[in-house]
């Protein structure tokens, strides 16, 4: 295992982590402040990818595709919030799980009806389609772009939450929603905007992921579960926690997938390692979450309550 491979895998892990963060940021805020479990977050990611692909089809421009994804998801988030989500805030988590589970089924089918079952075409923009040479290794520039965008969003959201008035309201809402409402803040509007922004970030993640992943029905499922794992590890309601947890999960998952089979092969026989390796690697993230929850149920970086 050369150091360039390790470096490349670290970058891969970082990129995956950053994508997870884009998804986790919105989800953890929605959960932390409105206490709303949103399984349909993966569907918002998927819709973002589809909006991007459709916009790209008509304009040929990646910039417009990303804008369409963010705008479309924002509107979709607002619509969802108004129609279904806002009625569910007072209910318990079971109702949230149920309603959003139904939404997942709905969106998967909707996408198949409108766009068909074929994966839709979305391309990496020209200026990013090359590869950067890193120590004898060609690493796709587009993935570097994802890392840059993700870090920018992370910094931006940190600034927003810690340095602005809105951010203060958000932080207060995460700690004591009732009090914030009692202070006369339009909590309904705040909740709606929060949900919509979360949806927008998910849409952005979908647009960024679209060129490298297959844009098809059901693409939100696997990434959703990992995102839920991220916010649980990071601590519900904490964007900082989501950031660190996303990076940890991204890197652990990527490195695990690569190096676990390799390490197993040194210890056990080949066919067993080949079978058990990928399985253990997939389980790794869940094991990590179980350990974190067993040791610190409130997460690694909980929002201070």
């Amino acid at each position, binding site marked *: 295992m050369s150091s360039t491979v390790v470096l490349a895998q670290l970058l891969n892990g970082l990129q995956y982590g950053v994508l997870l963060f884009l998804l986790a940021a919105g989800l953890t805020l929605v959960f932390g402040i409105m206490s709303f479990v949103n399984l349909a977050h993966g569907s918002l990611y998927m819709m973002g990818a589809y909006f991007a692909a459709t916009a790209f089809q008509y304009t040929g421009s990646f910039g417009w595709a990303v804008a369409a994804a963010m705008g479309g998801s924002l509107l979709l988030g607002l619509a969802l919030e108004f129609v279904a989500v806002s009625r569910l805030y007072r209910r318990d988590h079971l109702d949230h799980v149920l309603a959003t589970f139904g939404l997942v089924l709905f969106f998967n089918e909707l996408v198949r009806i409108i766009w068909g*079952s074929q994966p839709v075409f979305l391309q990496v923009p020209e200026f990013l389609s090359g590869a950067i040479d890193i120590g004898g290794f060609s690493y796709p520039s587009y993935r570097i772009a994802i890392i840059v965008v993700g870090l920018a969003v992370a910094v931006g959201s940190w600034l927003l939450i810690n340095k602005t008035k809105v951010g203060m309201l958000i932080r207060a809402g995460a700690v004591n929603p009732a009090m914030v409402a009692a202070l006369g803040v339009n909590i309904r509007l705040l909740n709606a905007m929060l949900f919509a922004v979360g949806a927008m970030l998910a849409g952005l993640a979908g647009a960024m992921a679209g060129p490298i992943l*297959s844009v098809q*029905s059901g693409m939100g499922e696997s990434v959703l579960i990992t995102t839920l794992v991220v916010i649980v590890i990071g601590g519900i309601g904490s964007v900082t926690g989501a950031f660190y947890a996303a990076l940890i999960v991204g890197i652990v998952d990527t490195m695990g997938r690569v190096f676990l089979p390799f390490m197993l092969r040194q210890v056990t026989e080949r066919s067993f390692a080949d079978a058990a390796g990928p399985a253990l690697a997939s389980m790794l993230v869940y094991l990590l979450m179980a350990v974190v929850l067993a040791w610190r149920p409130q997460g690694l970086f909980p929002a201070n309550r």
Partner: protein
Amino acid sequence: MTIRTPSLRRSSLVLAALACAGASQIAAAATIGFMAPLSGPIAVVGQDQVDGFMLAVEQLGGKLGGQPATVLKEDDQLKPEIGGQIVRKFIDKDKVDAIVGLSFSNVMMASLPRIAESGVVAIATNSGPSPLAGAGCKPNVFSTAWQNDGAAEAMGKFAQDKGVKKVYLMAPNYQAGKDMLTGFKRYFKGQIVEEVYTQVNQPDYSAELAQLQAAKPDAVFVFYPGGMGVNFIKQMAQAGLMGKLPLYSVFTVDGTTLPALRDAAVGSISGAMWDAALDTPESKKFVADFEAKYKRTPSEYAATAYDAANILNIALGKAKPGDSKALAAAVKAAGSEVKSVRGPFAFNNNNLPVQNYYAFETVKNGSSVTGKLLATPLPKQVDAYHAQCALK
């Protein structure tokens, strides 16, 4: 609740066929149960199958074997449990004359005991797992697709003939994945640098691609059907590897994935028993008709279903519905009679195809991306398991 034909075209077609048939002739109509994955990441394959089959039925005037045909379509969602229920339904409730499609190998194998026990004729249009080709062969179960190893064997031979020395292998971690790599290794005698099995439906291959680069093989051989193929090829292109590292593949770059890949797939070489680029009169007509009707280029999955419909047409003309043994024999004979779109075709003793396997290259053709026939590494290939089958 017998007709599930969501598109208006199809429903009106079948209704018209039934109207012509008249009430007294419903007993003489042929009922076909078509099972394919119509939802989920692999739905595009199932959809091509259904469309290929229905195209043939439409061309035959809505009839198979001269009798009005009712085609019941069911979605198995690529889940063996659901496939088992659907097969039960076809056999016990709908009392179909034949079951076609049968999805992927894992779904098919789960339903096989029930199909074998009932004796109903079943034609798999997307699989040919080695157990079915060998000791587990059944007199009423056929495949108009391939034996799973076949296309991979062709790539192995092609690579061997080209003088490739070191190959890196990748496939998803399920039976078909293993079959493909086994098939490749049967004919490729060079060095296998690495054999990597990734998770089924894994979206991100960046880790594996980094490893691939580090291993520096002469070529890479992969099997990634459906969405997995789109992901893998796209990411490989972005890593700058397409064009630098020869890519041999099966079921990865084909009619179902090319629309999403376009230029990213240019330069890759695939092994298949059919491609839209094949230059035979039957194939050209099939492609033209399919494109006219569905506004997209067919894949080999559509071709197998198309051939299955034509085989059934010949067979049902000879055997009365209701006698599954006679129908099975007629299907077997029909294999040699049908003018398949893929060139020479016949059923071997194990009811799997004897056919050519070609090597195609994906090239840029003006503004579009198409295949180009390079060679026929394995003409009239007989699969490696047929000797273990007790059937004649």
